């Protein structure tokens, strides 16, 4: 076992900070007294840590969770580029910490995953709520059949000017916000309509049935994605909006910002 112990010692040697993915105060207290900087990452600050990065979603894949934590900590200047970071997190669903990952803060490419939620035009809560609606829709579909949907969040004025109505807007003179309890049902019903949903910075659903007309030149999204994804990528390049797409063919939820694919989630995992 000495080989294993040495290996572990090597992994945790000379680290600058610890990213601790826990909601358990007992675990946190064990680290709190240590000399190394401890940054807690989680959906809520259950342990009342001073240094905390808030996760908008329970990222089920390790990659997204670590990326988000690192980008969040860097954005809050809790860690610097070039720092050696140790991430302690859960890989399986056990809930206990079972995974140690060592990374250098500048070793990975900055994907803008953190910016997608925090530094978008729309409120972070609104972006998160739309994600939840899309995930919910992806899980259940419309009467058991898979559906597709396209949500354009933020910068609604500009988006409205770069799109045209396909039919009467069912949300005209209504004041429905994403996050209202009734919205999930409504959007589920309206998702059989074609076109995009437009949602304002503050979360008001401005319109459904919008046909987006952005300039699509120079939009580079992975090959194989359909017209809906192309429209989503293009509108975010033309405006400051964020687009969240539920794919009808493979059931994935994808987020675009500034014309680029930022995040890919499988609703079945949530």
């Amino acid at each position, binding site marked *: 076992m000495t080989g294993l112990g040495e290996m572990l010692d090597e992994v945790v040697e000379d680290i600058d900070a610890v990213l601790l993915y826990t909601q358990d105060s007992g675990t946190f207290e064990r680290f709190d007294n240590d000399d190394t900087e401890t940054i807690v990452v989680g959906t809520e600050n259950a342990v009342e840590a001073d240094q905390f990065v808030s996760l908008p979603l329970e990222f089920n894949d390790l990659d997204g969770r670590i990326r988000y934590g690192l980008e969040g900590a860097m954005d809050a200047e809790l860690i610097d580029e070039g720092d050696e970071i140790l991430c302690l997190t859960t890989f399986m669903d056990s809930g206990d910490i079972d995974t140690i990952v060592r990374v250098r803060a500048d070793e990975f490419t900055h994907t803008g995953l953190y910016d997608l939620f925090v530094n978008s035009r729309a409120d972070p809560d609104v972006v998160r709520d739309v994600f939840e609606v899309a995930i919910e829709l992806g899980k259940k579909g419309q009467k058991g059949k898979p559906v597709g949907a396209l949500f354009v969040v933020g*910068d*609604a*004025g*500009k988006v409205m*000017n770069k799109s045209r109505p396909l039919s009467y807007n069912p949300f005209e003179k209504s004041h429905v916000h994403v996050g209202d309890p009734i919205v999930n049902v409504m959007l589920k019903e309206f998702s059989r309509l074609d076109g995009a949903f437009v949602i*304002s*910075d503050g979360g*008001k659903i401005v319109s459904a049935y919008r046909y987006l007309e952005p300039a699509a030149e120079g939009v580079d999204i992975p090959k194989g994605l359909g017209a809906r994804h192309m429209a989503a990528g293009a509108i975010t390049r033309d405006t400051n909006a964020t687009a969240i797409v539920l794919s009808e063919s493979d059931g994935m939820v994808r987020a675009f910002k500034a014309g680029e694919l930022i995040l890919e989630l499988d609703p079945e995992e949530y």
Partner: protein
Amino acid sequence: MPIDVGRLVRRLFSEEAAFTVAVTILLTGAVISYFVWRWVHSLFERTGMNDAVEGTAFERSVNRFGTSTGGIIATLLGLFVYTLAIIVAFNVARLLDYEVFWTQVTRNLPRLFIAVLAIIIGLIAGDKAKIVIKERLRSVKLPEASILGDIAKYSIFYIAALIALAQLGVATTALLVLLGAYAFGLVFLVGIAAKDFLAAGAAGIYLLLIEPYTIGDEVRIDDKRGIVQEVDMFVTRIETDGEEYIVPNQQVFRSGIIRIRS
């Protein structure tokens, strides 16, 4: 009337019968007070009152004495019923002749009880109000905001004390005047401070209901021209390249709005 019962029993039966009746009343009172105690306990549990008072300072200090708010109120009510039974029994048995004194007590006992209850409810409500306000303001990271909770707490304490004192027959006119002045000042000052908000809110309700312009329209207000990005209760956000105007809704009303169709 307890006195009448005593006289009736005495006239119909004898002095011993009256004594027996008194003892029976005493026992029944004990049983009833026990049931009242049990009932209040289960009432607190059933209606979820125990959860509602959780975390208040009163509940915490009571917990330290090994009981709960529900327990205290139940004990109080039980004690009240039992005291009543004792007084009735004493009256029937004519053990004490201070009739005037006892009628005084029967008249004042409920008042005392209400006064104690008012204090307890006031303490709990005040603490609860503070906790609720604090939770609401938690997202606002401003230490000064916590004073709002304290203001609410002590206002409720003051009113509770006022009710209790009035129940006990203490002259509270001066305190009432003080309360009136305080309430007036609060309403008046908040009114002045929130004047613009009220005006903007009134205009905002119209704008939201009628929607003369919506998100995506190009408009001009005074010399601010741009695309409407958001309309809420108080402000309209208009954006041009690189500039975002946040216009209070009453100004939209006052200067009118020009929709640009081109």
